[in-house]
């Protein structure tokens, strides 16, 4: 028996901000969940199961927040589970929820991911004072900057590329009412003149620290038929992992990322992603990861990703827009960031992306990664149901 087709019928996000001091964690997730329910015109009673995700517990210091959030998410009496895959968790959470529909375990599933970064310090949570270990010497960006330098050396990319990505994403965010950063008056010069933090990463090329949540309602074919607005259909979804550190690891283009993309394309019968995919929402925490992922995901040959960025292909009006929402560079509630990518891809093919809508988007890729390039999660959504 073939899998049940999976449809995204409801999407809700909070307005991501530096700090949401007006709400508890429960209040934050509730906001996104209610918006997704409203979008789908469903009620709590219509939901069969709840699948949530967030980054490690140390980020807010709430041990197993899923226990306490069950009330807020209408999960009492229903199956509820939590997914843990570091920064990619928003994506893998959505995929676990989608599998519950595809396997016909449930017909309507609420999936949600969140982070309230203002309640603690992610950098602290990731660099505990483990005895005998050398302390991390570089801070958050210091982990990523050497890999970016390796990319530049390997490809010969001019050092101007990163600023182009940041300038694009921050302008795109101005069209997205949910984005955290709305930098009116942003110019390329401002990005290029922002302080150099971890050379080659400048301040304006880094992601912010955000509070936010994102929710989706996934449904089966019958649910999609009843939905008041167009559905986004899941054509492919995959997760891959690899060790954080091993001899031979390619941090510039990790094998797990390539394999994950290949699995998604195979399911979705995509042979030429550059031509067949209309828009991409990818997890770009630091500007240079756009060209790096363009290669890793097969949109450009090795060493050629930066040329797509440089020539404007990834701009809102380019022929492969990347992160029309403004991306992680414009909002980063860590646990939610991957799900926001997945949700924004779905919004595009539903034609519901508002001012950052890409005209005629029919196929979109949502991408998430995390844990020092340890975990990858991706899905490809389309405006039409998959053909069986």
């Amino acid at each position, binding site marked *: 028996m073939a899998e049940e087709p999976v449809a995204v019928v409801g999407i809700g996000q909070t307005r991501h901000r530096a700090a949401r001091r007006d*709400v*508890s964690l429960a209040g934050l997730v509730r906001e996104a969940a209610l918006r997704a329910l409203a979008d789908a015109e469903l009620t709590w009673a219509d939901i069969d199961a709840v699948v949530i995700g967030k980054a490690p517990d140390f980020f807010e210091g709430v041990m197993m927040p899923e226990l306490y959030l069950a009330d807020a998410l209408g999960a009492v009496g229903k199956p509820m589970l939590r997914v843990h895959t570091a920064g990619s968790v928003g994506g893998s959470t959505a995929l676990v929820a989608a599998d519950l529909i595809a396997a016909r375990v449930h017909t309507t599933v609420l999936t949600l991911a969140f982070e*309230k970064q203002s309640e603690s310090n992610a950098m602290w949570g990731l660099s505990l004072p483990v005895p005998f*270990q050398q302390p991390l010497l570089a801070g958050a960006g210091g982990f990523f900057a050497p890999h970016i330098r390796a990319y530049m050396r390997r490809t010969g990319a001019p050092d101007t590329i990163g600023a182009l990505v940041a300038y694009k994403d921050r302008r795109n965010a101005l069209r997205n009412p949910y984005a955290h950063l709305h930098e009116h008056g942003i110019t390329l010069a401002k990005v290029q003149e922002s302080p150099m933090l971890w050379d080659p990463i400048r301040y304006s090329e880094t992601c912010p620290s955000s509070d936010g949540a994102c929710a989706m309602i996934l449904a089966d074919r019958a649910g999609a038929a009843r939905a008041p607005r167009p559905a986004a259909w899941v054509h492919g979804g995959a997760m891959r992992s690899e060790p954080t550190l091993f*001899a*031979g690891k390619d941090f510039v283009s990790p094998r797990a990322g390539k394999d994950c993309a290949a699995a998604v394309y195979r399911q979705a019968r995509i042979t030429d992603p550059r031509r067949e995919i209309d828009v991409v929402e990818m997890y770009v925490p630091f500007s240079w990861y756009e060209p790096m992922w363009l290669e890793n995901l097969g949109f450009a040959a090795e060493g050629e990703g930066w040329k797509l960025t440089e020539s404007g292909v990834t701009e809102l009006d380019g022929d492969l827009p990347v992160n029309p929402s403004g991306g992680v560079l414009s909002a980063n509630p860590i646990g939610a960031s991957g799900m926001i990518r997945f949700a924004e891809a779905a919004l595009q093919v539903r034609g519901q992306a508002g001012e950052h809508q890409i005209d005629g988007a029919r196929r979109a890729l949502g991408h998430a990664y995390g844990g020092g390039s340890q975990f990858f999660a991706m899905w490809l959504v389309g405006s039409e149901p998959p053909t069986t």
Partner: protein
Amino acid sequence: MPQPLRAPLVVEFPFTRSLGPVQSAFLTGLRERTVLGVRTADGRILVPPVEYDPVTADELRELAEVAATGTVTTWAWNPAPRRGQPLATPFAWVLVRLDGADTALLHALDAPGPGAVRTGLRVTVRWAAERTGSITDIACFEPYEGESDPYEGEPDPYERERVPYEHEHEPRPRTAGGHDGRFDDPVTGIVAPARLDYDYSPGRAQSRYLHALAERRTVGERCPSCRKVYVPPRGACPTCGVATAEQIEVGPRGTVTTYCVVNIKAKNLDIAVPYVYAHIALDGADLALHARIGGIPYDQVRMGLRVEPVWTASSRYPDHYRPSGEPDADYEVYKELL
């Protein structure tokens, strides 16, 4: 073979919590010696209050004041209190259903011994002398000699027919006073310090590595399958999944494979900025270590730079690496180690 090393690992952080409207009213109420619950659509009063109905998922915002007296519904004796617990002397953990409430609150009961505690015991709040808007504003509960539940037997205008949950107490008709939850200077957030104490051991492989470091030697382990040399060793190869045992001394010199220039001061790091944070492939190792580069202006560090360790008396690890004076390594030699 030397014993594996051990050391305490303390994970400690002052987490903050934004309370939202219901918890804000509850904790501010405690500061004012007022215990607030929240009323559900079916008329029950939940203490401590929650923001969303556990049954219907409805938003709950209607607050009600309950008494500071109540009844123990169950308990467990704690003979050896630990740091951070409500009382320093042995006490009972109790669930207390406050008069007017339908659910029980977890707290501590000050009692001389387990023989003095029973389910059904009448108790009252002992308020903390200094109250800040925290659950510890209730210092603990203490046995209470006064009247039985003053709400017992009163009709509850909100009570209506419903199916009791499993394990639920017999529905008791009672009332509790409505409360708007408004106080001057409300508490909107709290700091929740968390502390976890671990007894940490890095294991045999890393202990061998650390013992060698004490002699200023860097010793990795070679995978018997893929032949890669891991530094620091982990006792197993993450790619092949087999144990590693063959000790291989690497370095002391190495090659900078990539790096960044750090321009912002990291917390708790006493290093003047800017400085160079580099990945260094020690000669003979198959993956890079991370270390600081010194002894050269930061803007002259480059990929391929050959370096050697600089040890200090105070540090387990090389303090930093400095140029060795050799010619730069060719990119082809180290590109696989990037």
